[in-house]
């Protein structure tokens, strides 16, 4: 019961806020709604016993990426564009196609849902204080190579961002 209340509340918040992101006229409002949606995602991760991920989500997304977004929105001062059209010309076709894709996805999930038998009580692997440790061990042993590649990716992104944003190199 409590499970359902929590899930549906969070799902409602996430879906409503996501819709507001793409409907809002103003980019700052969009960013604000996206932040609310991201916090909803973090809460959902806690429900799914991924506490570390929830913390990382808030720290990286809300505290980092969204601040960056707001910074850029302020730099390019979008307020003058508020009364221009929001959508591109192909928006009707786009919505129809996207809804088609969604219908397909949901149909497949509902039809194939019986494959995902939910095992009941979660075992010790993912519970209690172990989460951070277990994720860390996986990250630094089995997935060490992807981890290193991710760090190189971040380095490339960092240099790229500096080069792109600099006026004269």
């Amino acid at each position, binding site marked *: 019961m409590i499970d359902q209340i929590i899930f549906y509340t969070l799902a409602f918040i996430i879906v409503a806020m996501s819709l507001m992101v793409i409907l809002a006229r*103003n980019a700052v409002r969009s960013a604000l709604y996206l*932040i609310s949606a991201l916090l909803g995602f973090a809460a959902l991760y806690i429900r799914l016993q991924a506490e570390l991920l929830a913390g990382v989500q808030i720290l990286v997304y809300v*505290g980092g990426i969204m*601040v960056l977004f707001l*910074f850029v929105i*302020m730099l390019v001062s979008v307020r003058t564009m508020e009364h221009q059209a929001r959508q591109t010309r192909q928006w009707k076709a786009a919505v129809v196609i996207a809804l088609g894709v969604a219908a397909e996805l949901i149909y497949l999930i509902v039809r194939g849902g019986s494959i995902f038998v939910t095992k009941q009580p979660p075992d010790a692997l993912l519970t209690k204080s172990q989460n*951070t440790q277990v994720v860390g061990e996986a990250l630094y042993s089995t997935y060490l190579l992807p981890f290193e590649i991710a760090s190189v990716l971040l380095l490339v992104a960092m240099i790229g961002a500096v080069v792109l944003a600099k006026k004269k190199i």
Partner: protein
Amino acid sequence: MNILVNYVVIPLVKIVVIVAILSGGIAYLTLMERKVIARLQHRLGPMRVGWHGILQPIADGLKFIIKEDIIPIKADRFVFTIAPGISLVPAFIVFSVIPFGPPDSLWGTGGYVTDVNIALLFAVAVSSVGVLGVILGGWASNSKYPLLGALRSSAQMVSYEVAMGFGIIGVLLVANSLSLVEIVEKQRSMGVWFFFVQPIAFLIYYFCGMAETNRLPFDLPEAETELVGGFHTEYSGFRFSLFFIAEYANMITVSSLAVTLFFGGWLRPFSSVAALSFLDIIPPPLWFVIKVLIFLYIFIWVRGTLPRFRFDQLMRIGWKVFLPVAMANVMVTGAILLKFL
């Protein structure tokens, strides 16, 4: 029924008590700040309201509530209205994971609202949300000084958060846990405060904490002399007071985390030395409060002493001094732990 009591009623009672104490504490922190600054400048500070100005915070609070609440005509009303809340709420949420007393205190319910396994990450993450209120408030005012303040603060906070995170990792390596309760327990079982193990990490954490709370010498987002008031120039009355409260709550947060991580939280000094057990007559939460007060005093002391940085100096010190030193600290700590433990 038991679940209801354990997970709803008891935490709610604790939350109410903590919020009440915190609000009172913030009110009197403003008085403390004015008094200390006054003494540093050979003045007396507030003297009129009550004995030596003891009722000054109440008068200030009343004034804030009674003043007209102005929303500029060009402001984005919705964002302008909620920005102070975005700044205030995270500052209070952090206290839900900070331990004020040992786990067996308060009739076995523990001297904290909750002890989660990612408490430290949670505290850092949530306090990083507060900056959004500053940025949005500055943007929504639709005026140049607030916008400049908001831009400065977003650049500053993002820069200093990185160094702060690296500073904390040093503690994490030693403590082996993200739970704040376990970190304090570890300091007791090791018999030494982490300040003596990780002094560099502490200094970096504390300086970055000052930058995160927009306090002098890092108060560029609200620099009165150049930006009038920075992000809160257009705010007045009650909404301004919310920003004000958030700043002081953040000061208490930074001090509390510093005490928890580096100065043994609720532990008395030299908790492993039995000869000093007479110190136990002061209960653990009071030790915690005393230590926090010392750090708050240093905050005010620094404000009264140091001039403000220039913006390029601020960025240089953040990226070229704090960050490399913090990273070196993590590496050295890791190497030593690997070699000797």
